[in-house]
């Protein structure tokens, strides 16, 4: 690439050019000021010669032509080094001026990635930055260590109005306004001088001027004098003013207020003057000087001898104390001469000559430790290398060297370092090494004050973007750094510009802190500039900053509210992130023909309800004919929307979460809805057009309409709440449509801190929608569009008094309250309950004074329910309220319901109530009301019964009731034990009549009571049982002294349920009878609602069977003491065995007697067989400890029975009569077998040596068993014969 065509090349051609010093008299300036500029300004547009085409010869006589040339004109007063502060001030002003001329465009959209990448360098870096760079470079002009800023020529200007102009010319150069460097000796005072006489045509005629000019020529020589006449414009010829002033306008030095007085001739004259000055005077002069100096340098420095000499001479100067700038060199010193030679050669583009001289000089300066000069020379040689387009490495090395050396010198050369860096960076950029360039800019930025650093960093960032591949993140980072520094130097607009440009790098960024920093700062700065809309937009991005600390969150939030308040208008923010809305928790609850008593009931699975309602509601097909026949038929077929009813609220549950640690107040949370007509066309494109709205910047009007809602169409509920730090709350929002149509639930809106309105659309994924069609009811998008039906009656229901916790066995009377909220009546009410064991509807005529209604009423003899298994009546559990039971509009309807809980644990009660409309309403003919209750049943009393046969009586049994209180702290008062059915009489044992001592069961206490029961079935002699009854009152004190009738409605109903239920558990075991234990709960810790004395509990123990019962029980009877006179004969005693068939089948029994003593070893084995058999039969018992008890008790009895040895070797008695009898017994039948025994000697005999063998035919299987005789002791006394007295 041609170095001249690069930016740096052009910059060098413009900036490193000969300097012309201008000295004027005051009158000259007055003349120029008529046009509004100074003399230098007047010449300025003509100091650049784009095509000068001057032939030049190098020092070695090589001819070449200069194409472009430039002169720099300065007043002598300006040829001085600026001090640092002044330079700083100047640069600041430059930035401000440039900023005002073209303010950055801050309100447009920030750039995007694609546009940024396609931008060229000039677009990326604002143009004013280049200007700033130039100005920055110019601040280090006129330093003593560089000579290209030293004036080559001097123009002395006097006005024709000046008194004695010739003398003025003499004075001008000698006055002390000459530059200080000239006076110090750093500059060569012998320079080319040019004398100009300025004539103002407005003041006087040209004759006077011409005479002065002639005099000048005589004095200063013909060639060095020029006359310029200006302001020759006359009144009236202003025709082509604009074209004329174009050069000045380009330089920006024209003041519009002033009249311009120059005409075309004047300008041409000036142009010719400048051309002449450059071509004929300055270039030849420089050429000449190069020759002279080159000659001089060759003589003193070139050649081997000179080099040795030089080296030796420099060595000798080692002891010179090291000054900061190195030794002082005057213009006449050989080093300065070489430098001038180099600079002149550089300015005349003889770069090779320049380079050779710079290299020569750099070793000298290095040896002299004149570091600043050394750096300057290095800098120039690098530029020479660049212009020669040679050895890039060398150029870079020199630059780096120069830069480092300048930095080493310290603060005095710091700006030089900056200039060097800028050139270096430009050089790298020219060669496409953008990444290196950016690092150079970064290095400069470290040395400069903040404003400059900001500009440098911005340029660095541009370089990162331009490098291939673009380094976007570096670009962003450096822009942020730049913006930060702009802000520090009070350039907010530039700061915003920098941050905005970086935005696309950090868009959708999960680097949270970066995001927060960028958006917060942009927002804040926009806010301070008054662009509150944009400020709020940015601050909104960072509101949900859960990762920040609490003070930062506070800061963000306060800033946000501050902006919003100062903006002072309503803000609607889509997707406001405070609070966060958990869309997965989103739920729509709407009621069509299914209505719910409470929102929680909605959570129960639909299938559970469906199962429950299966028999109750009309079948699906029937239902369809019902409401598809109506006018909605066609549209409903088409649009399978959910249905809701006008006047009834549709509820939407949404979870709100506060991501911050600070509480935020939220008010007016409500839904955004849209209710449209039934028109099919709106249905068709309703949803899609709406979603399109969301995507492509929603239309404001529609949003407002959605937000404010339409009171005539629907009502919206509004909620206010305060979300604490990190808190999550569920909000239930309602919309109540008033008219028919299609209701679309569009979104939710809320007001944050009374200032900002946030809203959010419920977005529906199309993929989700598909899934939803498969029947997922909750959270499906389809639910958001509802068809509103005409208002139809609705029942609201609740169950009064249903506890959340109850003890097992708790028996209560509840009341079901149904309320018809509409005006028209409903009829044909049916109810179904999933747990008929827990809830049984009562009769409307029931005496509601519970539990007194249960009291036994002797006067009113009720027909006893037989214990036939009428389970089937309760299996379906469909309860129809009386046919005429229509609930009129606005009417309350109440129905008693009995409640009883059988087993401990959690019970989920589903109650569904079906009803039909009195009048047929458009769509639906029936509705269901669903109620769901969950209650926890706590364990209370554990009751178990052990029934063992009474040893002395066949039809009597002993009952041991084991009661354990499993409640934690509750005491129970036993009230009554009843056996169900009329065939049993229960009584307390005579020995323990005083049972009242055990009536209270404390928490954790276990106790046992004994009762006797008697089978009344076969008892013929009424008189024997004096006091029989199926109930035993245990309690003697307490409020409820009377016996309760268990055969009355709720108790017997629940008993059937329990029986049915427990029967399932203990299948196969032989059931004898059922017990019902009634008790009262007393105690401190019971729930207050249940704290009354009437807390009645009923425990049902069903299918109790006799322990260890074989299918046959028998009892031997006969006299126990017999008096017999053995002198006559042996004694014969009549005995008999009563047999009872306890099995449900027919049994064949064989009684066999034997006279020998059986082998005793056989017995325990058969015994051991029976014991486990016994325990397995006890599976119905839930409690193990109780079972253990029974075993412990029963075992010794048995052992005793079977281990009784019969010690006699030969029995002194024999069985007489038949020794083997066989008979068949029907179930529950008794039979008597007569036996005879002959006794040969007096004594006491154990008549247990008989055996019963039975065979039972049960369902094709024959079960057989044997039984040994029970001990029966017969005492025969020798004596006179008496009557045998039976025992």
């Amino acid at each position: 690439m041609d170095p001249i065509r690069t930016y740096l090349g052009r910059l060098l051609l413009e900036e490193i050019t000969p300097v012309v010093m201008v000295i004027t008299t005051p009158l000259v300036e007055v003349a120029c000021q008529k046009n509004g500029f100074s003399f230098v300004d007047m010449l300025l547009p003509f100091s650049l010669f784009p095509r000068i085409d001057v032939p030049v010869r190098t020092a070695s006589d090589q001819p070449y032509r200069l194409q472009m040339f430039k002169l720099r004109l300065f007043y002598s007063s300006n040829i001085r080094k600026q001090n640092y502060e002044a330079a700083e001030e100047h640069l600041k002003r430059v930035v401000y001026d440039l900023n005002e001329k073209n303010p950055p465009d801050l309100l447009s959209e920030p750039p995007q990635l694609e546009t940024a990448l396609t931008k060229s360098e000039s677009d990326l870096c604002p143009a004013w930055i280049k200007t700033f760079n130039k100005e920055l470079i110019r601040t280090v002009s006129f330093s003593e260590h560089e000579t290209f800023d030293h004036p080559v020529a001097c123009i002395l200007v006097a006005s024709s109005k000046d008194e004695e102009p010739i003398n003025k010319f003499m004075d001008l150069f000698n006055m002390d306004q000459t530059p200080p460097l000239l006076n110090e000796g750093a500059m060569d005072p012998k320079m080319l001088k040019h004398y100009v006489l300025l004539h103002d045509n407005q003041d006087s005629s040209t004759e006077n001027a011409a005479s002065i000019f002639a005099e000048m020529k005589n004095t200063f020589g013909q060639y060095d004098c020029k006359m310029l006449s200006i302001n020759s414009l006359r009144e009236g010829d202003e025709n082509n003013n604009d074209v004329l002033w174009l050069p000045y306008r380009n330089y920006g030095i024209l003041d519009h207020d002033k009249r311009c007085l120059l005409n075309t001739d004047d300008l041409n004259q000036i142009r010719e003057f400048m051309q002449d000055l450059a071509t004929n005077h300055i270039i030849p002069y420089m050429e000449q000087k190069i020759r002279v100096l080159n000659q001089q340098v060759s003589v003193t420095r070139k050649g081997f001898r000179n080099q040795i000499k030089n080296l030796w001479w420099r060595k000798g100067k080692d002891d010179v104390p090291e000054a900061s700038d190195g030794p002082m060199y005057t213009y006449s010193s050989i080093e300065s001469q070489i430098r001038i030679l180099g600079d002149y050669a550089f300015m005349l583009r003889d770069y090779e000559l320049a380079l050779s001289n710079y290299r020569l000089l750099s070793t000298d300066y290095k040896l002299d430790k004149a570091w600043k000069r050394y750096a300057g020379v290095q800098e120039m040689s690098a530029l020479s290398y660049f212009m020669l387009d040679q050895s890039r490495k060398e150029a870079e090395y020199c630059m780096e060297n120069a830069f480092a050396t300048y930095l080493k010198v310290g603060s005095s050369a710091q700006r030089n370092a900056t200039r060097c860096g800028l050139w270096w960076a430009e050089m790298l950029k020219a060669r496409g090494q953008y990444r290196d360039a950016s690092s150079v800019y970064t290095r400069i930025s470290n040395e400069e004050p903040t404003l400059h650093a900001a500009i440098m960093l911005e340029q660095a960032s541009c370089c990162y973007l331009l490098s291939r591949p673009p380094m976007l993140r570096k670009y962003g980072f450096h822009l942020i750094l730049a913006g930060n520094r702009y802000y520090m130097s009070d350039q907010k607009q530039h700061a915003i510009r920098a941050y905005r440009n970086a935005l696309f790098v950090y868009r959708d960024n999960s680097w949270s802190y970066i995001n927060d920093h960028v958006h917060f700062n942009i927002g804040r700065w926009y806010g301070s500039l008054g662009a509150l809309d944009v400020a709020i937009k940015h601050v909104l991005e960072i509101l949900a900053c859960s990762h920040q600390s609490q003070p930062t969150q506070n800061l963000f939030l306060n800033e946000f509210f501050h902006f919003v308040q100062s903006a002072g208008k309503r803000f609607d923010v889509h997707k406001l992130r405070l609070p966060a809305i958990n869309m997965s928790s989103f739920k729509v609850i709407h009621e069509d023909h299914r209505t719910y008593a409470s929102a929680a009931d909605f959570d129960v699975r639909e299938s559970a309800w469906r199962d429950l309602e299966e028999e109750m509601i009309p079948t699906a097909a029937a239902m369809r004919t019902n409401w598809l026949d109506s006018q909605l038929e066609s549209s409903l077929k088409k649009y399978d929307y959910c249905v809701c009813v006008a006047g009834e609220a549709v509820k939407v549950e949404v979870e709100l979460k506060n991501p911050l640690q600070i509480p935020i107040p939220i008010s007016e949370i409500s839904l955004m809805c849209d209710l449209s007509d039934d028109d099919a066309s709106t249905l068709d494109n309703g949803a899609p057009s709406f979603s399109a709205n969301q995507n492509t910047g929603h239309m404001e009007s529609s949003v407002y309409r959605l937000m404010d809602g339409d009171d005539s169409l629907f009502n919206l509920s509004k909620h206010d709440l305060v979300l604490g730090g990190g808190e999550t709350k569920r909000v239930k929002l309602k919309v109540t449509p008033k008219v028919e149509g299609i209701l679309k639930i569009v979104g939710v809106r809320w007001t944050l801190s009374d200032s900002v309105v946030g809203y959010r659309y419920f977005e529906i994924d199309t993929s989700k929608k598909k899934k939803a069609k498969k029947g997922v009811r909750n959270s499906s998008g389809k639910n958001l569009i509802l068809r509103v039906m005409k208002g139809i009656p609705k029942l609201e229901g609740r169950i009064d008094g249903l506890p959340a916790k109850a003890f097992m066995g708790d028996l209560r009377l509840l009341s079901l309250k149904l309320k018809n909220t509409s005006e028209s009546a409903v009829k044909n009410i049916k109810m179904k309950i999933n747990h008929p064991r827990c809830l049984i509807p009562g009769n409307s005529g029931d005496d509601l004074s519970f539990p007194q209604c249960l009291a036994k009423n002797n006067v009113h003899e009720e027909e006893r329910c037989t214990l036939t298994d009428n389970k089937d009546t309760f299996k379906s559990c469909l309860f129809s309220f009386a046919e005429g039971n229509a609930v009129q509009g606005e009417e309350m309807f109440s129905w008693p319901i009995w409640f009883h809980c059988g087993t401990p644990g959690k019970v989920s009660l589903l109650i569904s109530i079906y009803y039909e409309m009195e009048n047929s309403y458009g769509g639906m003919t029936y509705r269901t009301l669903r109620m769901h209750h969950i209650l926890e049943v706590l364990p209370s009393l554990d009751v178990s019964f052990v029934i063992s046969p009474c040893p002395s009586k066949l039809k009597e049994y002993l009952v041991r009731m084991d009661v354990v209180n499993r409640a934690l702290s509750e005491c129970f008062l036993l009230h009554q034990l009843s056996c169900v059915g009329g065939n049993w009489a229960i009584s307390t044992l005579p020995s323990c009549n005083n049972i009242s001592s055990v009536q209270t069961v404390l928490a954790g206490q276990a106790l046992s009571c004994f009762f006797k029961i008697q089978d009344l079935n076969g008892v013929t002699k009424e008189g024997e049982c004096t006091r029989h009854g199926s109930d035993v009152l245990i309690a003697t004190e307490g409020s409820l002294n009377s016996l309760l009738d268990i055969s009355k409605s709720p108790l017997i109903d629940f008993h059937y349920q329990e029986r049915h239920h427990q029967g399932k558990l203990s299948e196969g075991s032989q059931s004898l009878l059922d017990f019902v234990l009634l008790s009262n709960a007393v105690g401190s810790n019971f729930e207050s609602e249940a704290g009354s004395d009437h807390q009645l509990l009923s425990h049902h123990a069903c299918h109790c069977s006799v322990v260890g019962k074989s299918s046959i029980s028998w009892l031997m009877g006969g006299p126990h003491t017999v008096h017999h006179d053995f002198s006559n004969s042996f004694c014969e005693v009549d005995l008999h065995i009563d047999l009872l068939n306890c099995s449900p089948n027919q049994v064949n029994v064989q009684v066999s007697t034997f006279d020998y003593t059986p082998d005793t070893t056989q017995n325990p084995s058969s015994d051991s067989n029976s014991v486990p058999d016994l325990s397995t039969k006890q599976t119905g018992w839930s409690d193990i400890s109780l079972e253990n008890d029974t075993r412990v008790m029963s075992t010794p009895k048995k052992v005793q029975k079977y281990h009784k040895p019969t010690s006699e070797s030969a029995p002194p008695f024999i069985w007489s009569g038949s020794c083997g009898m066989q008979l068949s017994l029907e179930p529950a039948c008794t039979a008597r077998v007569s036996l005879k025994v002959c006794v040969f000697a007096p004594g006491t005999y154990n008549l247990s040596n008989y055996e019963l063998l039975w065979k039972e035919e049960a369902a094709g299987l024959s079960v057989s068993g044997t039984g040994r005789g029970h001990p029966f002791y017969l005492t025969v006394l020798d004596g006179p014969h008496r009557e045998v007295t039976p025992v």
Partner: protein
Amino acid sequence: MASTACFVIVSKNDIPIYEAEVGTAPRKEEVAYQHQFILHAALDIVQDLAWTTSAMFLKSVDRFNDLVVSVYVTAGHTRLMLLHDSRNEDGIKSFFQEVHELYIKTLLNPLYLPGSRITSSHFDTKVRALARKYL
């Protein structure tokens, strides 16, 4: 002397999936974003550098003032980045290797979705322990 060390695991989608300030210097709000900026910008360098070498440990790839960024690139192009001001290359290398092992263990968790944020407190404690040991 209080040292700064900011450790970040960046997923292959350039999303930080784990961040921890493991230095001994007291944590300050205003440097948190600065660290992120430096690490984020260093990704540009890593992007170039990662393909020039077969080593996983790229040593220090970038610097900002006196803060140095050391990077370790896993085979899945997950980058473990450490911003530090100490000069302990061996320690940093060992640290990276051990954290890499921990990271692989996290990846083996079937419930962990690769590329998602690592929220395991166990991982966090382990990393901090390693930082104390090596840095």
